[in-house]
């Protein structure tokens, strides 16, 4: 029988175990333990299942990254919640509750320096509120309210705990608004109004270089750029939607899911000049924890937590781009 060495003039390396997938791209080897040829591949970005959230909720707040995430509040069937959970990429762990039970809320920042702003609680009058709280990695403390938005939820929120940007939203009254505010870690200051009066816009980036797209009503694809002072026309997304997840910065962003008004599984990434469709979520949904707004993760590693499918769900998905894999070579 012909051998590989006889044909090619050299042998395939034999390894007792596979090398790390990130270090094996383009390599071919024989796994002597498995008795199989293997090859290292580099695939397109994709969503995989993550560890299920401890409860089925939607409209919760979120902040952080794929391996250091914080999720709080939201609605379960019949009530608003104050529970807060940390995620380390594998396990959800309960931490101290928020002071106010809140839904339709928005978040920004990190697991150790997060800000939750706006939302609603049906026991309040009016039900929408501009209540803000800061999380320091251990507990929540009340922060100054945004007096520019007296009674508003579904805000597009991005930036950091000491340099945040609040974009438009929905409240009662007057309904959908275009008001925008900046947060300096202590106080909120009114800034240029969003050019399109919308709720639940997708917002990414930092206070001086932000991008906001989509939103409703009506559902739109248009996007706008913020430079720390004013808004200008930006690049449109491919699928008009609201209330999905987002992350990244103004030159490397990502949005996923949302309502069109039916739930969508579409994911789009942004390079600073155009939006491109990439791998779909496995489960179409809106009102995720990482949605209607937070700086949750990046364009290459992100997290979609809970949401409505249309029923409230506890499912989690993790985005990675690219996808490294060691695959078995099938010989036929």
């Amino acid at each position, binding site marked *: 029988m012909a051998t590989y060495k006889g044909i090619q003039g050299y042998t395939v390396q034999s390894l007792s175990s596979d090398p790390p997938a990130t270090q094996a791209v383009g390599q071919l080897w024989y796994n002597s333990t498995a008795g199989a040829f293997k090859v290292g591949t580099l695939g397109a970005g994709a969503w995989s299942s993550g560890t299920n959230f401890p409860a089925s909720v939607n409209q919760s707040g979120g902040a952080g990254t794929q391996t250091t995430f914080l999720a709080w509040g939201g609605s379960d069937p019949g009530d608003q919640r104050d529970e807060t959970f940390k995620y380390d990429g594998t396990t959800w762990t309960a931490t101290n509750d928020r002071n106010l039970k809140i839904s339709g809320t928005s978040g920004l920042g990190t697991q150790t320096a997060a800000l939750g702003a706006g939302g609603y609680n049906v026991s309040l009058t009016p039900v929408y509120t501009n209540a803000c709280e800061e999380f320091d990695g251990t507990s929540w403390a009340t922060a100054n309210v945004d007096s520019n938005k007296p009674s508003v939820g579904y805000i597009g929120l991005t930036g950091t705990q000491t340099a945040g940007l609040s974009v438009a939203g929905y409240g009662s009254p007057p309904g959908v608004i275009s008001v925008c505010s900046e947060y300096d870690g202590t106080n909120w200051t009114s800034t240029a109004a969003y050019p399109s009066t919308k709720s639940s816009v997708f917002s990414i980036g930092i206070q001086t270089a932000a991008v906001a797209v989509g939103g409703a009503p009506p559902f739109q694809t248009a996007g706008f750029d913020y430079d720390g002072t004013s808004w200008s026309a930006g690049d449109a997304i491919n699928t008009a939607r609201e209330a999905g997840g987002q992350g990244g910065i103004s030159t490397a962003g990502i949005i996923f899911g949302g309502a069109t008004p039916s739930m969508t599984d579409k994911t789009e990434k942004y390079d600073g000049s155009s939006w491109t469709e990439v791998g779909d979520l496995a489960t*179409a949904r809106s009102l995720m924890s990482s949605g209607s707004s937070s700086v949750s993760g990046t364009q290459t590693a992100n997290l979609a937590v809970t949401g409505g499918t249309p029923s409230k769900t506890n499912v989690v998905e993790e985005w990675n781009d690219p996808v490294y894999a060691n695959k078995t070579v099938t010989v036929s």
Partner: protein
Amino acid sequence: MANTYCTATNFGKGFFTHEDRNDFYLSGHAGDVWVVGNNAAGVSWINRVTGTAKTKADAQAIVDGKIEEAQVSYDAESAEYKAMHSRPVKYILP
């Protein structure tokens, strides 16, 4: 036939991987219904997650039932909620 259908409970991490997503079509729907690309990798995944095979009609009926439940829940929501969210609608599985 481009797709096959099953029910399976999403147990979390490892239920479907990034590789799975690149190897076959997969979409999840209400009622633990999964639409799976009908190739070797997709069939292997159904076996791996102990999925229960369904006809498209049966899978569609499960999803429709769950959407009807969601419609009932929506109808019971407050006016504030309804002002911000659309009533769930039925759709055809791919």
